[in-house]
């Protein structure tokens, strides 16, 4: 069996690797069943709900109840700390080898088999100036942002996505258009291109294009694809203004994109996806589950993640009805998304929409 080349940026030392290994394990412990904060805090909230005699769905009240508990405050402290530790370690590790990593990117910029198209006059819209997930300098202000993101998400996915396993699984779930024609695929906000290359492996004869606003992300995406030998093209463009001709794509894809967009841009992006996806084509979206029907603690967690983990737009996204927005701009959503959690990851759900 052919082994897959490792595209993960190398850390400077065994110390750094072990440190991040700790963060990965600690994260799982405090956010999962190890410390079991969720079950215990939610039980406390449900008891308050029972006491008041009606559903506890007021976020301000939920927040007050969680913050009144030492356990709730400690949960917040630890959740924030593990994220900060991750970035501290990566900052130190990458900073000490910045020139090497920079040269690595430059080496691959002009090598194939695919292409990298950066726009020297690109204007970053103000709304993208956010340190998502507390990533230092955000997604585009550091030449090494793509490397930060790649290793950061490795910790987030607990090592389960080192070979793009999750991306390959999600991409394989995207339904074919009714006529089964898949010649051209657009990966919206592709970041480091894991879905883009996964699509290439699934449809090796199709033209696959990944777009993102972040030049550092696209350079890492291109480097990854080149090392993997996947012929895909990356272009620096906005998801709400792709500049492709109408009805170009058989599949348009968006993986955890919408929760990082303001509501206004969500509408613009769906409208743009409707414009570039051909009739009968598929717009496949994987993103955070909505807040409807969530437990009190899950409602709290959504707010906490938004405010304390650099996700300012996620609350609005989770509160909105994406299916209605998709319908409004010309898609038919075949299956109701409720309950369709995807990829074995409980925080995701999907919307598979057909362009009508």
């Amino acid at each position, binding site marked *: 069996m052919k082994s897959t080349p490792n595209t993960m940026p190398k850390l400077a030392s065994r110390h750094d690797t072990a440190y991040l290994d700790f963060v990965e394990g*600690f994260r799982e412990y405090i956010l999962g069943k190890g410390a079991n904060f969720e079950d215990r805090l939610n039980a406390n909230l449900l008891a308050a709900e029972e006491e008041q005699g009606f559903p506890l769905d007021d976020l301000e009240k939920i927040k007050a109840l969680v*913050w009144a508990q030492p356990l709730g405050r400690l949960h917040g*402290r630890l959740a924030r700390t593990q994220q900060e530790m991750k*970035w501290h370690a990566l900052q130190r590790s990458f900073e000490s080898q910045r020139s090497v990593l920079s040269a690595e990117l430059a080496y691959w910029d002009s090598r194939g088999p695919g292409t990298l198209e950066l726009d020297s006059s690109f204007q970053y819209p103000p709304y993208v100036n*956010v340190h998502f997930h507390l990533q230092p300098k955000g997604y585009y202000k550091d030449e090494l942002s793509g490397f930060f993101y790649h290793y950061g998400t490795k910790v987030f996915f607990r090592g389960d996505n080192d070979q793009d396993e999750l991306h390959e699984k999600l991409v394989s779930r995207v339904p074919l258009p009714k006529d089964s024609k898949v010649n051209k695929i657009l990966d919206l906000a592709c970041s480091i291109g894991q879905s883009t290359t996964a699509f290439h492996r699934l449809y090796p004869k199709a033209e696959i294009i990944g777009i993102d606003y972040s030049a550092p992300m696209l350079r890492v995406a291109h480097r990854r694809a080149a090392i993997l030998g996947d012929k895909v093209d990356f272009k620096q463009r906005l998801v709400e203004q792709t500049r492709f001709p109408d009805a170009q794509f058989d599949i348009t894809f968006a993986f955890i994109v919408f929760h990082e967009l303001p509501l206004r841009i969500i509408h613009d992006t769906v409208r743009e996806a409707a414009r570039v996806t051909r009739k009968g084509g598929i717009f496949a979206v994987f993103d955070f589950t909505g807040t409807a029907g969530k437990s009190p603690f899950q409602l709290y967690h959504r707010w906490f993640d938004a405010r304390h983990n650099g996700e*300012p737009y996620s609350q609005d996204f989770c509160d909105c009805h994406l299916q209605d927005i998709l319908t409004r701009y010309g898609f038919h959503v075949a299956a109701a998304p409720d309950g369709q959690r995807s990829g074995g990851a409980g925080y995701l759900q999907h919307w598979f929409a057909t362009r009508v």
Partner: protein
Amino acid sequence: MGNALGALGTFSIGLRLVFEETQTPEGGTPIVGPDPVYLQDPVLDATVRMVVELAAQVWVERERRLALEVLIEDHGILERGVLENFRPSATQAITFKAERDRFMEDIFKELRRLPITVPKSKDDQ
């Protein structure tokens, strides 16, 4: 209170995350500032952070020792008693001291983050 990051300028202290300029999210949930206090007292926050940092450092050392012990035994290089009796040379001691300084910084940098006064308002939570 609006976006707490709006009031930030350029700063960098030790290994804290560097928020070198104001972020500009469009609406949505206001992002908390760079050093939120979660517990009743900033000292408690620092203490918790130090404990977690210490645990990380302990794991880093344990992982390295496990790797070394396996390699040493696999290669038949040393008996375990030799390691117990090892004393560093003067040059080696300088290296060890530098490592110790890094260890101190990693764990106790939180002490430098403590505010001089306790915030009066809880609005920023």
